[in-house]
């Protein structure tokens, strides 16, 4: 991960919806959900549209600008969660005026919340990872 790459969604298991500027992402394979802050939603949308990270640094974001360290940490987190991967041989695109305007109007910093309360129901092997003798859905710790 880093500013030299162009990024894309990490495969077909990652699906997302955007509502009024708020993105919600679901990892179908793990069952984990992710909610973004308003600026995080904008940057997520920009990155998966192949906007280069370098072009986002210094952009107006709420009352300040996007700092390189903050963006780097945000991208690293997206990578750790398996949501974003470097895309090979993809040409960078420009940030759309609409996204730039939303970014400038954002209220919160770059943030992503992960929800895995129900991941056990989706991801755990219900045969081999089950606590005995309780059985499914009691998961072996």
């Amino acid at each position, binding site marked *: 991960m880093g500013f030299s790459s162009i990024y894309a969604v990490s495969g077909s298991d990652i699906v997302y919806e955007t*509502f009024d500027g708020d993105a919600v992402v*679901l990892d179908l394979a793990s069952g984990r959900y992710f909610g973004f802050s308003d600026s995080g939603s904008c940057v997520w949308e920009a990155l998966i549209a192949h906007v280069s990270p370098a072009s986002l640094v210094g952009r107006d974001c709420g009352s300040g600008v996007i700092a390189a360290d903050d963006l780097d940490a945000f991208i690293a987190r997206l990578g750790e969660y398996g949501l974003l991967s470097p895309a090979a041989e993809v040409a960078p695109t420009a940030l759309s005026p609409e996204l730039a305007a939303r970014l400038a109007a954002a209220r919160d910093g770059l943030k992503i919340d992960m929800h895995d*309360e129900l991941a056990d129901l989706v991801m755990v*092997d219900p045969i081999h990872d089950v606590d005995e003798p309780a059985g499914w859905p009691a998961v072996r710790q």
Partner: protein
Amino acid sequence: MQRVTLDGLADYAREVLAACEAGAGNFPLQSRVELPGLSIDVYSDHGELAAALGHGMATANDAGRRRPARIFLAHPGIGSVPTPAQWGEALFNPQAFSERLEADGLRGHYFHDLRYWQFYDVEKRLGVQLMLSADGCPPWEFGAPLRCFLHWEYAARGMRLTHAGTLGAGGRGVLVAGAGGAGKSGTVAAGLLAGLESVGDDYVLVEFDGDRSVARPLFTTLKQDHTGFDRLGLASRLPDPGPLNWQGKYQFRVQDLSPGGVAEKLDIVALMVPRISSEAKSAITPISRRDALMALAPSGIAQMPGERESGFRFFGELTRRLPCFRLALGRRGEEIAETIAAFLDGGKP
């Protein structure tokens, strides 16, 4: 004992489906379940599961527009029904399990503890629930029989079993969505006691009809734990509520609580996410669609095998269509019902 892994999964499903279809005449019971757009002939044995089918399913009044389906609730004591196989040594990945079957036009589910299989051929609308005995299913099946088959059949039509309670009046209603323990069932029971209608308190069928989002009933069972049962004063309506279910809850029917309480359908006008509060009065306040989706989608997707992406898309569209609210639940059931009734009457909090 036969062992099945991903490589032989689709073949095994076809074998089980074919064996039950060929031996249909050996099943002791045949009953018909009439649901929205769907008429299911259920072949089964005598027992608790067959009884649950008789009293826990809703009945639709849309005769003539239903597609036929057949579902076999099978076990080796019936004719030549095979003994359920066991999963092999390979790791069991539910997503891979679903994908392998979907590639063959099938849907399926396996519950290892009971060697319990469900397979559904979407094109033929033919399903088998293969168990070790007549009632050899997980305990939650008795509260919502055929749930997975309905999920697969309706999902193939662009409709969705939605994990939410409902309350309505005059044909308009709200979806009450949230994780277990959020107050869905108690809210629905309180509303029914106050004269509101419902199409269900746990799983309801939702479809889009033009701009409308319509919810219809599939199951008529309601559940309440002992505390909720006492708080709502349900003993006066249900003096003999029967034994507690697997969750330690009383299980009864909408009709038992309110004879006219099951609506044929409700035009859904809002999505509400309940939260138990310590306040005397309930309050309905707007929440973001993101938060509403996070309350609605996860449990509905996680509790249903397969169709995860289509489920996420459907719930995303539903959330996009509806105004979304937080429903902070007051302490009294009557007051909660009055708050929702006033919302439905005025269309806003």
